[in-house]
């Protein structure tokens, strides 16, 4: 999957405000590249609407981030695919995972993951509330095999 350039994507968000941590960091003391948001809500909004998601750094080996709690309020001129692609490109995210239910989440969100090349590596059930709801588990590794060892 080839993503659009950052410049191209930024044009989609003119007039919108970004909140949360959108920057990848580097700690020279630990020689550690890290997405600066261990826990953050990234959000894009203007007067008419917003989309947001939460990001959580992996607590164990720091190999990947979890993303979830996707919300849309009002009307946005950009899609979930635009949002996620922009986040991936802007932060330089290396590896992340998400669990999406077609029935519970906005179906365009599920489609965005597919279109962006996230690998739908398993299917399982939610543990609560929607007992019968199936959930698709998605994983993204930057540049496919290039980022893998």
């Amino acid at each position, binding site marked *: 999957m080839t993503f659009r350039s950052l410049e191209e994507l930024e044009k989609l968000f003119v007039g919108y405000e970004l909140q949360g941590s959108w920057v990848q960091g580097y700690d020279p003391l630990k020689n550690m590249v890290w997405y600066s948001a261990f826990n953050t809500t990234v959000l894009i909004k203007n007067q008419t609407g917003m989309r947001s998601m939460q990001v959580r750094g992996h607590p164990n*080996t720091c*190999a*990947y981030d979890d993303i979830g709690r996707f919300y849309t309020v009002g009307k946005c001129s950009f899609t979930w695919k635009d949002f996620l692609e922009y986040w991936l490109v802007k932060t330089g995210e290396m590896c992340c995972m998400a669990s999406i239910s077609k029935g519970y989440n906005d179906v365009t969100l599920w489609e965005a993951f597919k279109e962006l090349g996230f690998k739908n590596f398993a299917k*399982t*059930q939610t*543990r609560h509330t929607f007992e019968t709801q199936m959930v698709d588990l998605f*994983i993204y*590794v930057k540049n496919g095999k290039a980022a*893998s060892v």
Partner: protein
Amino acid sequence: MKTLRQVQAWARKHDYLLSGYRKGTWHLNGIASIDDNGDAYCCAMPEFGYFEADWPYRLEEITQEQWEMLLTFYIRTSKHPFFRTTTTARKQYKHVNAALQSLGFMKEHTVRSKHGGHYQVYMWFHPKV
């Protein structure tokens, strides 16, 4: 994979105590432990990790069989629908990795650690048991 009854029989035979609870630490008492971290978002994809040896043992001293019993106890008792964890490729994790493989965990990806990228991290998944 062994049944819960078989694991408990094994623990009795060796005079071990197995314990643990969801979103807590699971112990093979006096030997080793793992942590259940739950899931940050939809609860479909809980994760566990922090493979630790109890003092005075070192990680590499815990046998594959001991890891298998602790992991089987965790899988059988926690009743999560899905399991995921990460380990490193370093030699201290040799028995942990062998135990995960033996229990049917699938190594979905190998990625560079974010801690300098000088070692590899295995991402393991196990579907509903």
